[in-house]
């Protein structure tokens, strides 16, 4: 028998790059996504399957790419990303008031999405190249590398993506050993600021009060979060309806396909950013806990891979990628349940949307690659 046709060999070729635990968790989440999609908007199942196919292929390819190769593409990817972002600022397409898309003839691309992967890769590469002699100066350089794309993205304006890219870069800095003396004061100031906004919500949300540095609609978004009932027909509508969907789900939910909020068109964006509300309305607290547990397992698997990674580059990359998944999940579930502002972050591996799925699966693929190649590269 021709060894090329040996099915066991083929199976080995297909499966060997993949990490078992991660694969199981990702498959669980995409299955969950499909199950909810059947209820929320069944006509999208076909596209979901295609998107998932492309995303898995990307993951598989990333998983086969050894970390040194990943490291070698970090800087070129970053430079290309920056150039594309500048191109967007100069001749990008405007949609819904923001300049985010670049028309390259065949299709439109959103370069800020690329930056979510390129950012941690680049910073991890930078610290690897300075391994053993990392000083304060290196953190300054790393922060500049981070702020350049973040500034360009924030100017589009796309606050949600800017925050995510900032977070992805910050995680690398954090794992690279950014001193607590810098992290703690920023964290404290942030917490105090948020707490005081919440405490004084009634006074500062009065019409006519200007917030320095923020535009009227950004103030509106925060104020709506503090008191959704202040605007029940406009922005507050989304938050009110999704909290009602979650709350009315109770412990075991209303049952698959029986969510009244979902099926009477009260829920906005029910197959994308607000898909978690559908899930909790129909499967209740139990359904929500299952998702949360899957994410916790995913994150701990990621941290475990980071702990065992052989090089500084792969350690930093694995740690940062893992925390990115955490940030996505936390921000999305937080905004849907009404404790964070609505910023347009998808629920990782569950929300409908090809670009985000491919980006996230590339991230998982890199984690798998780090895990698979842990023994081959010595320290």
């Amino acid at each position, binding site marked *: 028998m021709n060894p090329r046709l040996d099915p066991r060999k083929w199976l080995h070729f297909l499966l060997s790059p993949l990490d078992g635990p991660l694969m199981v968790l990702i498959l669980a989440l995409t299955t969950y996504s499909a199950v909810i999609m059947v209820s929320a908007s069944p006509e999208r199942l076909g596209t979901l399957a295609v998107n998932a196919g492309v995303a898995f292929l990307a993951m598989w390819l990333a998983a086969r790419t050894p970390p040194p190769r990943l490291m070698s593409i970090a800087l070129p990817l970053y430079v290309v990303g920056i150039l594309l972002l500048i191109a967007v600022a100069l001749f990008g397409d405007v*949609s819904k008031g923001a300049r985010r898309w670049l028309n390259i003839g065949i299709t439109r691309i959103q370069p800020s999405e690329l930056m979510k992967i390129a950012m941690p890769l680049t910073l991890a590469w930078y610290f690897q190249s300075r391994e053993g002699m990392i000083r304060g100066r290196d953190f300054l350089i790393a922060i500049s590398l981070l702020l350049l794309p973040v500034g360009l993205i924030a100017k589009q304006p796309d606050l949600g993506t800017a925050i995510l890219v900032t977070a992805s870069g910050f995680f690398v800095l954090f794992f690279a050993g950014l001193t607590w003396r810098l992290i703690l004061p920023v964290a404290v100031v942030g917490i105090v600021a948020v707490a005081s906004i919440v405490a004084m919500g009634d006074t500062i949300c009065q019409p006519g009060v200007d917030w320095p540095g923020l535009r009227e609609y950004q103030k509106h978004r925060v104020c709506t979060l503090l008191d959704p009932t202040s605007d029940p027909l406009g922005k507050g509508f989304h938050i009110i309806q999704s909290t009602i969907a*979650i709350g009315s789900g109770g412990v075991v939910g209303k049952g698959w396909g029986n969510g009244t909020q979902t099926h009477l068109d009260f829920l906005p964006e029910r197959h994308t950013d607000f898909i978690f509300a559908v899930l909790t309305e129909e499967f209740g*607290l139990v359904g929500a806990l299952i998702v949360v547990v899957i994410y916790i397992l995913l994150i701990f698997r990621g941290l475990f891979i980071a702990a065992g990674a052989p090089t500084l580059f792969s350690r930093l990359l694995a740690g940062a990628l893992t925390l990115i998944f955490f940030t996505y999940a936390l921000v999305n579930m937080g905004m849907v349940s009404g404790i964070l502002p609505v910023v347009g972050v998808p629920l990782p591996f569950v929300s409908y949307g090809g670009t985000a799925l491919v980006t996230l699966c590339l991230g998982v693929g890199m984690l798998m690659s780090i895990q698979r190649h842990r023994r081959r590269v010595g320290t």
Partner: protein
Amino acid sequence: MAGIRTPEQELARFRGRLAVAGIVALIGFGLLVARFVYLQVVRYDYYSTRAEDNRISLVPIVPNRGLITDRNGTVLARNYSAYTLEITPSKVADLEATIEALSKLVDIQPKDRKRLKKLMDESKSFESLPLRNRLSDEEVARFIAQRYRFPGVELKARLFRDYPMGSFASHVIGYIGRINDRDLERIEESDDSANYRGTDHIGKSGLEKSYERELHGITGFEEVEVDSGGRAVRLLRRTPAIPGNNVILTLDLKLQEIVEKAFGNRRGALVAIEPSTGGVLAMVSTPTFDPNLFVDGIAPQDWDQLNTDQDKPLLNRAIYSAYPPGSTFKPFMALGALTTGKRTPNQTLADPGYFNFGGHRFMDDKVGGHGGVDLYKSIVVSCNTYYYMLANDMGIDAIAGFMRPFGFGQRSGIDLPGESEGVLPSPEWKKKRFKRPEQQKWFGGETISVGIGQGYNAYTPLQMAQGLAALVNNGVLFRPHIARHVVDAKTGERRTVEPEPLRTIPLKQAHIDLIKRAMVGVNKAGTGARAFAGAPYEVGGKTGTAQVYSLRGGKYVEGRIAERLRDHSWFIAFAPADKPKIALAVLVENGGFGAQSAAPIARQALDYYLLGKVPAGIAPEDPAAEESSEGAE
């Protein structure tokens, strides 16, 4: 920051940070779970009741849009109600097949399909989009009988905008169109999202855009109980919509109509202003277009035609296009000469037929010159040499400084969108306009051309009319406006748009009177005499010719020059001369000499406005004026 560490220390610190990350993740998810428990267990009863209550749905009631009428009550924009067939693409399995089946019941043209396709590209898939508007009763009946076959297709009674006067005054009235992404963004920024729920049209240009806030009204709501399928079963409470306010204009549609017809198929613009208030009596830009084409989403071929037409019918020339004023600039120059003391009324200068400056000979129109010319004669015969010399004596800074208060080279602030600035040339302007240093320098020769209204000078017809209105109104300049009253559609309460004097230009009455007298002389014995022969009122005017194409020394012979390179023809006029009720500026693109094509249009406008004289071929009484009054007053 910490100093250099050994790899072991580094690794230990890294693992410590991983532990911190793990703890943070657990805390984060813990908070989320706490939130879920709070919502789903502690407040379960509350939210489950809220979800039940959500069977009660709020349905927006779209307010009637306000009417627009002219000063005599002629309706320019109104609404009518009709049935429309709408499709929600996301609820239809096979769109093509559905439309095919529908076309057996109602008449669906290829252009309807094209429009739907265009709307689908612009909107979200869950929006209900019109396939066919204005269904006949028979079509309505046929569809209702077969409705069960078409999930996702609905029959809706909607209000449509209608512009009964068609293309008359279309640039002023503007049009409404479907709300697009950019409009949505603007609505969100101004915090009007709630008020626009259910509204799918918004003012896109002209008064429909500038008075959107007044015209739109306040959206009402119906609380209805819905069954599990989302269909309304019972009306619980109703907050009626408050209709939009009506806008009554200073515009006189009859005057507008006479002028538009007088233009025929020539391109150009006219702006007529009441000097004592700034109210715009007529604002014409030709060619015009039919705003009704835009209301339901314009058909692609109509759009292409309007956009590719080299006559640019969508352009409002009256406020957007700036042209060199030519000799219509001379009365203002003359007034500037008197005010700055560079000339006295009796000072006579010799005109040899040319003026030499910097090695260049600036020519007069009349070979051999006009002989001895004083200020009065300089306007009546439009003597170029007089103004070459004057410009040289005044200097560019004094000219620009004198002209600026008349509104030249600035937006007037009229209540219409899309006004342009024009150009009041000055050394500072040139510095800003050009990039390279050698282009930024101001040359003395350029001042000479500015003196006769050529060179860099460029003003909109509105600026010319406004400047003239200020001159004949003894220096008091009003902000031009087209809306006269805003009327509350419900209470009938009428808010008047108060005339807004922007400034009083310090001028001597004797100087103003001399200029006005000279301009009357133009129409009695000068360049405007032929157009105003036999006019029973006293009228001041000035012709002007704006160069389009520089002949570089050759002689201008109209017949030899391609039509689009011919000079633009200007005429400005005011009447009656002693107490002006109207001041106007006419521009005919490529019309040649000002007296020839622009002045006769001004004559027709003034004959109607002052004498009520209607040219042959136009109905003397407008039948629309009577039927309209109930909505407007």
